[in-house]
């Protein structure tokens, strides 16, 4: 196969490039051909600038129109399919952004979409988790254009290089199908780093009993420079907003350190965190399944352990 290159759809909010894009660029650089990034939005100069400095990126395509401002899948998919057909690969991050748009692109191109790849074996062969990560499938694509979402946590982010910038090319193609309309966005403003890319994640489950008790976790997270996460049970109970959910149907994280507190370790939760480097579990039930995937386990009452841990960290961690 002679590669016609890789088109990566950048994720952003018109102001900031989402970090996951850099992970996808790094996956793309393992494939044959030139890595080209497409930025679709409205008044997104800062994003374009950031993309042009990502290492491995050979060209940046930019298409701006009011109909692209809010990330509506129907409009963006038409554009990505139109320009994507000249490439051998079309990639996007396996985030709610990428997963919303890319299947639509694949259908417009009459090809399959391969979801959430975690490894590239060959130019047409990929690994992806199935059954909440309880199995890994190796899949060969038979399509001329391979449309795939990439699990960001499975690929190291491509670094930024300030010394050089990839050339930028403007596209003029405003699709406006008027099928869906943006009304409003309710973002929960979390303190600290972004959950998906944080080096430390402190996550709580139903064992926390109520929302206020997440303050105990926040304190630990802050001391470790980490982000807060939660189980579905904790989100359903209203302890924390939906975007804290980690798991099969929430976010996938793979931080250096994952501290699971008052979490039983249901397979649907493990699906989102089992690839973390070091896992610490704190649970009062010695038979909780979370201990099977943990490196370090503490059996005990979290309401006793957390204040102690907070104190110990305050003494031991050098805050410089």
């Amino acid at each position, binding site marked *: 196969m002679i590669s016609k290159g890789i088109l990566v759809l950048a994720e952003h909010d018109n102001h900031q490039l989402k970090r996951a894009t850099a992970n996808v660029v790094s996956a793309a650089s393992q494939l044959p051909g030139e890595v080209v990034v497409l930025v679709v939005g409205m008044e997104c100069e800062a994003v374009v600038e950031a993309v042009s400095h990502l290492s491995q990126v050979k060209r940046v395509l930019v298409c701006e129109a009011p109909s692209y401002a809010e990330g509506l899948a129907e409009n963006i998919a038409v554009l990505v399919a139109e320009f994507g057909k000249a490439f051998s690969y079309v990639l996007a991050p396996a985030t709610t952004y990428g997963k919303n748009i890319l299947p639509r692109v*694949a*259908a417009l191109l009459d090809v*399959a979409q*391969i979801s959430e790849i975690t490894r590239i074996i060959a130019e047409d062969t990929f690994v992806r988790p199935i059954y909440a990560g309880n*199995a890994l499938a190796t899949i060969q694509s*038979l399509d001329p254009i391979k449309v795939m979402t990439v699990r960001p946590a499975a690929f190291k982010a491509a670094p930024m290089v300030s010394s050089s910038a990839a050339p930028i090319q403007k596209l003029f193609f405003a699709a406006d199908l008027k099928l869906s309309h943006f009304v409003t966005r309710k973002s929960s403003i979390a303190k600290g780093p972004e959950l998906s890319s944080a080096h430390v994640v402190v996550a709580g489950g139903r064992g926390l009993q109520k929302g206020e008790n997440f303050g105990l976790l926040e304190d630990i997270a802050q001391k470790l420079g980490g982000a807060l996460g939660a189980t579905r049970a904790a989100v359903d109970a209203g302890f924390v907003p939906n975007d804290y959910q980690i798991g*099969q149907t929430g976010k996938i994280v793979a931080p250096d350190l994952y501290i699971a507190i008052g979490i039983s370790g249901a397979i649907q939760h493990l699906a989102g965190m089992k690839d973390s480097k*070091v896992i610490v579990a704190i649970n009062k039930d010695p038979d909780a399944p979370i201990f099977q995937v943990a490196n*370090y386990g503490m059996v005990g009452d979290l309401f006793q352990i957390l204040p102690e841990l907070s104190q110990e960290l305050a003494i031991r961690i050098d805050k410089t």
Partner: protein
Amino acid sequence: MKCLVPIKRVIDFNVKVHVKADGSGIDTENVKMSVNPFDEIALEEAVRLKEKGIASEVVAVSVGSNMVSETLRVALARGADRAILVEHVRELESINIAKILKAIVQKEMPVLVIMGKQAIDDDCNQTGQMLAALLGWAQGTYISKLTVHSKDKKVEIEREVDNGLEVLTLALPAVITVDLRLNEPRYISLPNIVRAKNKPLNIVTVQQLGLELKEHTKLLKVEPPVMRRDCIKIKSVKELVDKLIDDKII
């Protein structure tokens, strides 16, 4: 307003799955099968729309072997008015399922297709978006709230996205895919199970729908992941912090 609800038969979410020794797939012999949990939520939403007088009919559809009719009976017991089974033996990619669903939509002419955001077996999260593209319809994915404005021919949805919630309106007809927090499906009552036996379940084949389906991917192998770790039991907070510092984790 007619609602179409696609249903997938999957291994029950409580079952611990096992990879077959020859790496050809997942063991499904003598394993409990259920309706995909997300599809149950989709169906519940459609049934509620009917109870509110918004939906006129709820049609469940599934693609698979004749064993799937058992799953469709469950959908009928959950309140679908009738069911369609598209018989097909080979595992199909989402794009092919979407093509089959498109053919069904063109026959049934629903105004709203309500489906699960993903199946818990292949975790693909694609079919709804693909169906919407093939039909040229609006799509609303990962929804946690739905309000139908029949007069204005639109729906308002709230979607769960990575950085919170997003509210959109979609022109009808539309495809929506549901997330877990949209509703809590009810328990099935015994009278409803009995009633389901007499509800219509039609079987069609892919050929009868006039479709020729291409093969897009090949499954080369399935392996179990490395999951288990040797958990060191820690007695004190001090010991834990020592370990993490020793490992250069903090």
